């Protein structure tokens, strides 16, 4: 990767849930740079803070300490209104499920962030996205008339259509079978390759991670490892190693 720009960065990010005895350090000092035009995967065991990291970086939630910068905007300085605008205009988000408004058609869902902002879509770009997502014939359908994979692709198209500087996806294929998952991942990969989109994706699945350029491993709220140009095998290897280290730790201590 020759890209040198940093699309987003987290510095000493801490997120604490609960109080006193019930305190949970979901993030315990995460420092991470997301490079522009790169497809980054975040992996880690359940409860390691992946979703929390996504939420904090995507301006959906405020960290307890530390800073998040999107492009050159420091999120901590923004008010609710500005955060809303930032989410609308500069960040895309794909959730694990229930990404679409059931009353709107696929097309309307895709254009939702733009129409909320009162903006017209860039026609060329819109057509490119639709083509890439492969849903040209499904645009008038409502979510309940589409398969899970199609719905997630619509969600991805929505995340991309506003040309956000960064897209966060939290287990976008978590609810899909492998074929549908591949559709979605393929689309995300292509948007990085063809459009230079920056994407951060949380996943459990080594195969999904193999679509990315870089894998960041999280455990107990801290970054514990990193892997470039992953394949399913190398990712699995690392995961097993990390798991063993985690299990072996108490014995050593």
């Amino acid at each position, binding site marked *: 990767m020759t890209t040198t720009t940093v699309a987003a960065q987290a510095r000493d990010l801490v997120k604490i849930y609960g109080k006193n005895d019930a305190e949970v350090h979901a993030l315990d000092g995460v420092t991470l740079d997301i490079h522009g035009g790169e497809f980054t995967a975040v992996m880690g065991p359940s409860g390691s803070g992946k979703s929390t990291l996504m*939420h904090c970086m*995507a301006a*959906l*939630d405020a960290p307890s300490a530390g800073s998040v910068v999107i492009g050159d905007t420091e999120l901590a300085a923004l008010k*609710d*209104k500005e955060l*809303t*605008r930032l*989410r*609308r*205009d500069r960040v895309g*988000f794909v*959730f694990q499920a*229930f*990404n*679409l*408004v*059931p*009353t*709107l058609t696929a097309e*309307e869902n895709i254009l*939702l*962030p733009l*129409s*909320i*902002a*009162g903006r017209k879509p860039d026609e060329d770009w819109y057509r490119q996205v639709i083509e890439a997502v492969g849903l040209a014939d499904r645009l008038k359908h409502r979510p*309940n008339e589409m398969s899970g994979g199609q719905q997630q692709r619509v969600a991805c198209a*929505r995340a991309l259509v506003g040309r956000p500087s960064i897209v966060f996806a939290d287990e976008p294929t978590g609810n899909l079978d492998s074929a549908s998952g591949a559709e979605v991942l393929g689309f995300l990969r292509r948007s990085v390759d063809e459009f230079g989109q920056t994407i951060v994706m949380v996943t459990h699945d080594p195969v999904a991670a193999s679509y990315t350029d870089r894998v960041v491993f999280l455990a107990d709220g801290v970054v514990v490892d990193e892997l470039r140009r992953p394949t399913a095998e190398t990712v699995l290897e690392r995961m097993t190693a990390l798991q063993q280290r985690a299990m072996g730790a108490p014995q050593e201590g």
Partner: protein
Amino acid sequence: MLKVTVRNLLARKVRLLLSAFAIVLGIAFVAGSLVFTDTMGKSFDNIVYGTVSDVNVRFEDSGQAGLENEVNLDDRSLPASLVQTIADVDGVARVDANVEGMGLFVKKKDGTLLGGTGAPTLAFNWNDAPNADGDQIATISAGEVPRGPDEVAIDERSVENAGYELGDTVEMFTTGAEPQIEARLVGIVEFAGGGLAGATLVTFDTPRAQELFLDGQDAYSSVSVEADPGVSQTELADRVAEVLPDGTEAVTGDDLADETQSIINTVLGFLNTFLLVFAAIALVVGTFLIVNTFSILVAQRSRELALLRAMGASRGQVTRSVLTEAFAVGVLGSTLGLVLGYGLAGLLKALFGQFGLDLSGTALVFAPRTVIVSYAVGILVTMVAAWFPARRAAKVPPVAAMRDDVALPEGTIRKRLIVGMALAAAGAALMAAGLFGDVPRAPAWIGVGIFFVLMAVALTSPVTALPVIGLTGMLNRVLFGAVGRLATENARRNPRRTAATASALMIGLALVTTMSVLGSSVNRSIEAGVDEQFTTDFLVSNAIGQPFSTTVAEDVAAIPGVGEVSAEQNVAFGIDDRSVYGSAVDPAALERIFELNYTSGHAPESTDQIAFNETTAEQLGVGTGDRLELTFPGTELPVTVSGVYADTYVVGPSLVLRDVVEQVGLKRVDSYLAVNASPGADLDEVGDEITDAVAAIPTVTVQDKQEFSDAQRAQVNQLLYLIYALLGLAIVIAVLGIINTLSLSVIERTREVGLLRAVGLSRRQLRRMVRLESITIAVLGALLGIASGLLFGVSLRSAFSDEGITDLSIPWVQLAIFVVVAAVVGVLAAVVPAWRASRLNVLRAIATE
């Protein structure tokens, strides 16, 4: 299962409280009406039983309820010699002779009249007659007994209200030869019964009372007789009756009290029915709210219900668990409603006090019946309303527990449409029967017909709503873009829910619109009638239709510039079993001012002739030349029909000569004077002079054409506003319904709201979205309601065209205002749900399962 039910109740307290609130308001109205009318009844009981003697001697028919006794001033009197005759009857312990005067008004210190439009002023001679219990009926609680022509005693509350103190000079007005009198207030008089229900009690000494009310004869209106110990009321009444002349009767205290009681009960019954009709409307509207709330709660819980079914709960158990919840809500709502109703009755009591019906002497009556009725109605309404969703809940298949998207099985729209059409047809038939058919209790038929049609509109509204939502949707989209589109889709996504919510408002507005069409048509008809027929320059009358002294006519006639004066006295008499109003006039004077259009015959020319207007002639089935008997209190008058005239506003439904009044023993007074200026006289000047001439007598007012028309319409409007105010309750409940539905919908769509926020919808836009949905629902309800109300109003108007609503007037501006108000209501209803939606934590919203 009970455990599940209790958990559900606790988990959804806020939502259930909101729906319970509909019951609270409805039951509060029911309980309030009952408590209030019971209190009024109790208050009158005290008066009735506190003021009768063992035996009461009076003229025959003076106790009957017909309008004859309200309109006519009985001028008959019992000679003083009769009092002695009665005193000599064996078993009589004592006799007291009473003089009763009507039509007296007390002027307050500020110059206005005491009592106004409310309770009457009762004038008596002072005596210390005992009631049947042996207590003195009237006592002087402060000051002295009035003696001589210049002294008077008045009840305490009236003295207070009028701003007088003992020793002050009080000005009063009578219908007699001395229209304006003065007397020094020397005493405070009090009734043994306690309160006076707002009536004013004025007592003079006997000679003065005779002078004022019996033209100075040594005579009396009635005699109170006390029995010797051991002599029963009936025994004594029989003995007294033997010495009485024809036309008089001896009535036992018990009978007299019962008689008065039944007259009062008729009036109270009417008031009670009137109030309960509005309570019923409120409850019907409330039913919609409850059906909706339970439907939504059941829908939101369908997965859980399916799980229960999968674990082996029977359909019956599922239904019962929902109904048990409804029962709890019903009990809670009724309890709170009772408490609120008690407060409402207190409020009504205070309000009626403002209008002169003072009940402060009686504490609120909380009868066991009130409690039973309130709980029965409250629980029944809630359970019936919850029954539909409960049944639907039971239809959730157990397999739904495993599925992701649980849609409750719903009856088909087609079934709704069919049932709706059938209801509409039945309702229309009932209305037609009530309006045009000859059925007993026609208003009930019309009412039930309207109810059926409204239910039909509500049932079919998921279909009829679509074009309206389409229209508002287009507007929303054009004006508000994506947010408008989202709002419209939200309203459309569950047409049944939207329609049911709107239906509650629809019912309220349908009734309001009906009343406003009728009211506006009545006003238009009055205006048209007045325009055409009111050919007099001035009308001298009493603001509340009370008659006044004939001296006024003499004073007015004496004013230079006054040309014609036609005096008219309202009379009433019986023909067979009907009560008929009439005007006693001098036909020649009347003709000089008003042109009556005789369709047959001519005006009465002697005291044995009568003329009718067309409607009355038709109702009585009489025509020119027919012979009739008019029944007046104590006497009958054989007459011939001299003619029939076209219906008109300027005289009553029948005409007799003025001499008839004295001939049948009624008091001569005037009810109206029609006054024309002489040709060439300056109208304004003459008007001022007439006003000056009657200025001393505030009971009498002078109106020109415009003022007369305004005054007539003001009366209509007053009633209209009262009805609007009462219908307001239904509207408040409908608004609660919108709030409830929106709140529940927002909770239901928590995840969606979170998603929208995540993709950049601002809090403001989110609030706007909820608001627009709310406005859509409200405007939908308003449009459906106004359309139905127009239908009712127009058909009722045409049915009543014979009864004087000759012109149709549709108050478009007012209807447009209703729509705007509905939109505002929508905005207000959305405040809380929108606020809640915008406060939702984005992440928590997304995480909601």
